[in-house]
Each structure stands twice: as C-alpha cells, then as structure tokens.
C-alpha cells in the first residue's frame, strides 16, 4: 500500500502569523477550522512517507528537497535545525532537517531527553565538505536518515554519486578519501561512511535505536530560517511539530567554540554531544565510571576528575588529572588517531585540534587536589 500523508504546515505558519501576539500557551488559541466554506487549496508537503517501503533505493524518492538535489533546499514541512554544539566527524559540515506527518506532534520530556517524536518522523542529516581539493569545490558525501516507525527508529544511509546528482542507499559501510581546506589548513581524511552496526553503536539506549541531538537543551537557540531568525524550539512549535508546553526555562548547553562562555560549560557541552551517547546509563560503555551527559557532568567524579581509569595507558594517571593534560586519559584519547586509543570510538579518524586545545586548557586550569 502506498499512501502519502500531506503536511498541513501552512496552517501552523498561518496561525503563527495571525496569532503571533497571542500568548503561546493560551489554550483558546485554535487552528483555523478545516471545514471552512471558503475553500482555498492548502499547500501540502510533498514528502513521500511509505513506511512499508523504507528505505527507498535513492534519496530523491523521498522528495525532501526542491530543485537540484545537491542544493538541499527543503520542501514545505522539511525544517532545518542545528544543535548548539555539534558532533565532530572529521570536520565534515552538516545540514540537518526534521519532518513529521501532518496530524501528529512531538512532546517535551525533559531538557536533557529527546523530544518524544511521533511515528512517521524523519530526521535527515547530510555530511559534506567545502573547499575540497584540488578544485576547492563542495562535495556531499552522504545523507543519513532516521525514520520513526511503530516498531521504533530505523536507519538508512544514502551515498552521493560523483556527479552529486543522486544518493543511493548503502548501509554496508565504506571509506572515501577527502582532501580539504579547513580554516586555510590542508587536511585529509579517509572518511568513514558507517554501516548499520556502526549507526547502532552510538544511536541506542539498551539496544534500541534512538536519535541523539534532538533534545531541548541542544535546540534552545536562535536559527536563521529563510523567513527570518527564530528560536528553534519555537519554530518546531509553530510548525505544529512540538507540543506547546515547554517549561519557562531550559537548561541549555553552550556553543563549545564560543570563547565568551565559561570553559567548564564549553567542555561539558562538547563532551555531551560527542561522548555522552556512549558514556551514560544504558549506553554502549556505561560500565566505565564516567558520565558525560550535560546534566551529569557538573559532578567532578562523573566527568573523570581524579578518577582512575579502568584501562591504564602508559604515562597517564587519572581520566582527568587536574593541571596535567599530558597525564590525562581524556586528553590523550582525544589527541590520538590510533584506533585502539582514540575517542570517540567511532565517527572520528583525525584529531579535532580546536577541541583538544580547549580540553587541554580546561584540564590545565583545574586546581583540584586528588587523593
């Protein structure tokens, strides 16, 4: 059976415009009635949702984008978003989008937890590089999808062709070499396109697939949409994608690269999005002593300060040895490209120099006395 659910996003946009002065929490604010006699065709989202046929062979079949596929111009209802601090994947740049069917919405659970997304939700994430050598052009590598089905989340991955005209389903895992300029510095990576088992290694709780970034703490920030700048959570509410019942304040991460922010918050924000998917309860490595989620990492022991590692590394002392980055397992592992030492375990093959420098500054500034 093939059916297309049409997104009545225009209603939400319209209502947001009409009632923009109204109290967002006012329960009397209701959408325009559908059975209005003055029928006007309502623009509908052209995204194709066929849960029984997921995954399609090609990315273009989903109709997520308008015009040339490589331009990634989202169609109606496909909403871009960006976490405040992002996962590092060998300096790849990313475009992220969310789409939901018309008659359902996500609900808030907690600042630190994924919004509870309805069946039919697509998360779309494209990985690309600018300034790819020798031609200094843009190259899109892959577009990863997650679809929420009745049975839970499922993964798909689409690898882009050389002409950048189409991306084809492939979850077997592969490598591709990318030489690129990053801030004027030439860099090179043997970029890893993940297999489904690798997707699951990070994207899971117990053994159930889950997204990672779509949490209020990561999205409570302004974003420049085509039609103006807006708070990302408000945008989702306005689109009808998120129930309008958020708490007054949200404990929010900071942008790790924002040097005006306190360094401990920058560090905790970075390790939340880069490390906490494995280092929290019910995750891949929850048997290790550290807890890196943003709401847990303010505790010194959770973040590894003065904590002995389970796995000793020659020359290292604690996971975080105050004032001594050179004797800290966290710094060592983030500063290593060797597979058996480097962290995060997956998704990185070259060193994130700027983050390593920040972690080093943070450790060297710690004054705790270990027993």
């Amino acid at each position, binding site marked *: 059976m093939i059916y297309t659910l049409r997104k009545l996003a225009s209603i939400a946009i319209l209502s947001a415009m009409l009632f923009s002065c109204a109290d967002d929490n006012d329960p009397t604010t209701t959408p325009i009635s559908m059975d209005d006699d003055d029928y006007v065709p309502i623009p509908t989202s052209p995204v194709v949702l066929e849960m029984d046929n997921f995954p399609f062979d090609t990315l273009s079949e989903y109709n997520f984008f308008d015009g040339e596929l490589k331009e990634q111009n989202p169609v109606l209802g496909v909403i871009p978003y960006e976490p405040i601090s992002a996962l590092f994947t060998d300096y790849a740049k990313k475009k992220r989008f969310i789409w939901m069917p018309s008659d359902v919405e996500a609900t808030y659970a907690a600042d630190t937890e994924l919004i509870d997304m309805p069946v039919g939700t697509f998360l779309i994430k494209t990985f690309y590089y600018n300034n790819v050598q020798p031609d200094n052009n843009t190259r899109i590598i892959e577009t990863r999808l997650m679809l929420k089905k009745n049975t839970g989340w499922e993964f798909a991955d689409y690898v882009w062709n050389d002409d950048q005209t189409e991306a084809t389903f492939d979850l*077997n*895992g592969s*490598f591709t070499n990318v030489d690129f300029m990053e801030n004027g510095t030439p860099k090179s990576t043997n970029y*890893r396109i993940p*297999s489904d*088992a*690798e997707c*699951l*290694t990070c994207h*899971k*709780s*117990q*053994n159930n697939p889950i997204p990672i970034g779509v949490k209020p703490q990561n999205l409570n920030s302004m974003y420049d949409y085509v039609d103006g700048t807006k708070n990302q959570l408000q945008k989702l509410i306005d689109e009808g994608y998120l129930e309008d019942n958020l708490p007054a304040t949200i404990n929010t991460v900071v942008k790790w690269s924002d040097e005006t922010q306190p360094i401990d918050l920058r560090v905790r924000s970075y390790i939340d999005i880069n490390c906490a998917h*494995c280092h929290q*309860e*019910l*995750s*891949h*490595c*929850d*048997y*290790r*002593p550290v807890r890196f989620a943003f709401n847990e990492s303010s505790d010194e022991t959770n973040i590894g300060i003065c904590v002995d590692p*389970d*796995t*000793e590394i*020659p*020359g290292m002392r604690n996971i975080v040895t105050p*004032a*001594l980055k*050179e*004797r800290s397992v966290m710094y060592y592992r983030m500063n290593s490209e*060797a*597979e*058996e030492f480097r962290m995060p375990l997956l998704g990185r093959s070259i060193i994130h120099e700027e983050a390593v420098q920040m972690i080093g500054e943070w450790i060297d500034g710690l004054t705790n006395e270990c027993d």
Partner: protein
Amino acid sequence: MKKITLLICLIASCFFTVAQTTVDCSLGAVNTTYCYTNDDLTSFVFVSSDGSDLVVTFNSGQVENEYDELIILDTNGSQIYNGYGNNGDLSGLTFQSSGDTITVSINSDFAINCTDNGYTQWDFDVSCATCANPSVTYNIVNDCDNSGGFFIDIDITDIGSATSLTVSDNQGSATQATAATILQFGPYTNSTDVIISIQNDQDINCTVNSGSITQVDCSEPPGTTFTTSTVSTSGSQRAAVDMNGDFLDDVVSITNSNINIFYQESSGGLSTSATNIVTTTADNIPSWSLAAADYDRNGYTDLLYGGQNGVTFMRANNNGTAFTEISGSQYVFSQRSNFVDLNQDGNLDAFVCHDVDPNVYYMNDGSGNLTFNQGGLGDDEAGGNYGSIWIDYDNDRDMDMFIAKCRGGATTININEMHENDGSGNFTEVASTLGLADPIQTWSSAWGDFDNDGDMDVFVGASSTANGTHKLMRNNGNSTFTDVTSTSGILPAFTNTGHENATYDFDNDGNLDIASNGSILFGNGDLTFTVHDNMLGITNGSFGDMNNDGFIDAILGTNLYTNDTNSNNWVKITTTGVASNINGIGARVELHTASGVQIRDVRSGEGFRYMSTLNTHFGIGTETEITNLIIYWPSGTIDNIMNPAINTHHIITEGQALSVEDETLFQNITIHPNPVGNLMNIDSPVNLIGKIATIFNIEGKRMMNLKLEENKIDVSSLRQGNYILRLESNGKVHTQKFIKQ
C-alpha cells in the same frame, strides 16, 4: 621537544644550575646524591685532578620514564647518553668520558619529579678511570623461616683490574675476595637499608656501591622476577612468535605498510637490529588484535590484522622475505582473533570476534584461499564479543571456544559464551549449563589447569567491576564449573582491571600462573594464587621465550621483560603437524612426571590484543625426568614420546612416535552389528564411559570424535564404506575395523 629545548639552552647559554667538582684521583670516587624537581635543568660537572678520564656509576636513582631525561655529556660537550635507564630506574648505569670532564644532567618537565613523587633519589659515584671496575650483581635471599630477615648474595662475576677486593656493607661486615665468587652477607632484619661497597684494594678509584637493598617483609617473594631492557621496535609491537621457521620466538611490530621483525638468533637473544619488510598499505592494521600462524603451510608464519573496520591477512612468501596483503571487504569491528582448524580438515581457518555484530570466520580451502563467513559462532546481533580463546574444556579432543563478553546498557549481550564442539565441527552454546554465563564486563580470560587435575580451569578477568569482578572457576571435570574465587587468594589483593589476561608458568614450578594487566598471580597448584603487582608492563604484552632459556619472557612496546630465571627445570615443545595443521594448533599436550600430569592446548591468540608464542612450554619444578609426553593431534593422531629430555626444546613432528596398540587395555572388545547400521554397539569387559572414540576412514582421515557416554555410537552421519574405530585411554589405543552399511 624537550631535548631540543635543552640543546637550544646549551647553545644560548641560558641560565641553569651548574656545579663543578674536582675528582681527586688520589682520593677515589666522589659521591653525589640529588633529588630533582620540576623543570629542573641542573648539571653536575666533574673534572679529574690529573687529566684521567672519568667514570660515572649510578648506584641508585629514578627518573620519570619517557618524560624526564638523564643526560650525560662528554668532555667535548657531545652527548654520551640521553634516556631513562631501565624504564626510569637508573641503577647500574655507567658512563665513561673521553677526556678529563664529564657532565651529569637532569632535564625534567613541568610535572612529576623526585621530590614530590617519592622517587629514589640519584646516588652516583664519579671516579677516575685509572682501573677497571669489578662486575657485581646482588640478589636478596629470603631467610624468613630462620632469622625472619634476609641475606644478600653478592655475585662478583669479574674482579676487574684488582688483585683483591674488599667487600663491605654499611652494617659493619667486611670480607675480601681475590677472584670471581658469590659471597653471602647477612642475615639482616627486614627493612634494613643495606648498601654493599666493593673496593679495589689496589686502586681507590675502582669502588662500586650497590644502591639500597632491602626486603620489606616476609610476604612470599615472587617465583621469578623480570629485568627490563629496550628493544627498538618500530610501529605497534604486537607479537612474540616464530616468523622464519626456526621455532625461536621473534618480536613483530606493525605499521600500515611495514612488518618489523627482531629475529631471535640461534645463539640466543634477539638480533640487535630489526629486519623491516615493506608491505602494501594495509586496509586494516592490528589496532585491536593480531594473530599468527602458517595457514598456507609454507613454513613461514602469516599474520592476521584485526582492525576497527575489517580484517587483513598478510601471507608470507616462500622464504619469509615478503608478504602479500589479502583484505576482506566486509565490515568487521575486530576484537580478539585466532587461527584454528574449525572443520578439522587439516587447514587453519581464522576466527575474529566482532564488537558490534555476529562473529566472523574465514574458512581455508587448503590452497590458501580464505572464504568469509558470519554466523554460527556467537550470533548476538549487537556483538559484544571481545576475548575468544580456543580450548578443549571437556577433554573430548576437539577445540571449544570461550568468549569473554562486554557491553554496556545490556542484559544479554555481555553474557560470556562457551561454544562446545561436538567433534564434527558443529558448535553449541552451553555457557549457562556449565555455570560460565557470567555478566562480568570482560575483554579476555585466562585458561589453564591451575590445579593439575587434568582439565582446564578459567580466570575471567574483569575490565570493569560494574557488573561483577574477577572470577576464578574450577572445572569439575563433568561439564560443570564451581566459583572458587573466594578461596583463591586473588581477592581482595588483586585490584587491577584491564583487557589482558593470559596463562603461563613464569617460574617453571609446574603450577600455571596468570598474567593480568602487568601483575602476575603466581599459582600454587591448588587454585590458590599469590598476587604480585607491577611484574610486567601494564598491558602484559606478548609472551614467548626471547632468549631460548626455557623461561617465559614478555615484550610490550619497546620494553623487553626478560625472565630472571631460577633453578627450576622445564621443557618446550614445537608441534609440527602433518595430517593436522602445520602449527599443531588445537593439539592437546600432556606431560607426565612423577609429580603428576600437566596439560596444555596449543593455541593462536590468547589475551586480548597481542600474539604470543606458538611453542608449548612447561615448567616442571625440581623434577629431573619426564616419564612421557603425549600429543593428541587435531587429526586424531596420537604421539607418545617416552622420556624426553628436560631443559630441552623438542621439535615434534606429527606421527614420529605413534602410540602403540595396547592389547591389554581393551581386551575382548567387539562391535555389533558389523556391518553397522545407524547405531554401533560396543561390547567390552572394561568400562568405556569417558574414553575417547575416534572413527577414521580408510585413508586415515578423522571422521568423528567423541567422548563415550554409553557403549554405543551414533554413526548415522557416516557414508557407506570401511572405517576404523579407535578407542583411547591415556595415550594407549585399540583399533578395530568395521563396515558402515
């Protein structure tokens, strides 16, 4: 970086502490003690009174290994030494100048120093090189049973240029020696800091002093100790295994395009320089594990690289001088890897643990072609497979596999598994019925017969104690195991966690020991252990006999841990298969002495990351005779070698000492019906339960193997034809032909 800094400082004459001392050649050595601090660039400059060369001798002292350097400069300013001694221990180092000046310097960085970290302070003598120093080593001799203290054995191996030496301690004893000798001083009370001084009576400049020597208390000393030295391995050191067919363990290190080998020389010990073999740039490198075996039977060892995204084989050519890369396209997050003959066709197959998917294996067609397989040997969809090890846990003469498992956020993926082989290459997971289905987060286990009762026990080493800690399980010999951790002496003394656990008899006392993340749990032969920490490098490394002295050494990175040995006897065996795989992997080796029976299984790949020797090693303590040595080959062949020499490395070729028919053992045995249908009945006046029955075809190829549970064998899997039934007990056999209908 720091070395460059110092050089720049020297050139720029930037300020640092320099003390200059004259060494009066008529008065003898000048002693200096020093305890360095952070960012310390202190130099001690010594000048001889009469222009003689100078000798620096470190009695004791410590630097932070790999971070704080001891630097010695010659008269002309050139560098004599820049290093860390023996992993930071400077005692015993000596240097001589070419000229009247020598400089002793520290170059410490900003952290970790002698003053703040309780290091042994530097204690060194500088003397005029007018004579040759005596050569001396010191050994503590436990005297706990008598005086409650200790003796020191002073082993003077060379008196140097002296005609007589005065040997004294700092407790008021003195004696003379006129030739190489071993002197014993003491007894001393425990914790007494004893310093031995050895004075050349003819030349005051040739005095040598020990560092402080003491025995802290009367806890049991380790059965052996290790001396560290440096091997300049290049790349990731991964193996101690024979590569070139001389059966002596070599040291192998890997980069993505190099195989770097320190061959062991026939005269003993590793060659001083490495042989580097350039390879194609490997798709995968052995970040997670390396396994080694001669899977193409050409006499040269091949390698398996277990990488994070796949598996690469490096196949040695016919003289071992080059390797051909064979990389699979399949995604494998490799963990422990092994070579083993999975289908008992005489060809070595390869097994690789998968971290996040069902385990994989590569079947060898006998022409060296490997075919990828996944499924049937640990099929958890999310993997969790870390430490596979192949042993015959149920003594039915085939290889079973135990997997140490680990996984967070899980209740089933982390449960350890045992895959029992039915003798025909079919595997069944039986850990829960054995009592081995533990949730311990573990990356490897150490298997061995720790109580010498004829079956393999297991130490499951925790990588994290989040879901239970280390566990020692006794094999009851009846397919059950009993937790004996609480009486083993392992806990609470042993507190390490980590990836690496392996079994060897390090002190050759005939009782297997456990190496666990740098500690050795010395076995007492009764499932109790004495824990000694910091014996080896913190992740164990690769084990082998790198100097062919019959004692197991270890190599980790650039650090060679040479066994200091003791007077115990030993025997080593290289198993060379003929019908079986050429390395004899999977063979059960039984050693019979007056003390009893010891067993080993020949295996490729134990512990987590490293590859250790393919030779089988036994310590036999004070036994001076071996009654016999039985090898049960994977092909079914049984060799029984009578009275093999002790303290010898035996190369045993399959079939060289075939076990003889024993007329008395299985007298009056009959098979009926014959020809046999699906069920063979065996009539025997002696009890056959527990005996090993093997069926060969007429070409001698092993078709079935099982431990008898009744006097019947289900032979329905055999095709029509002529077969031979063999019954075996303690290396003696009875054979009988039969026909399958």
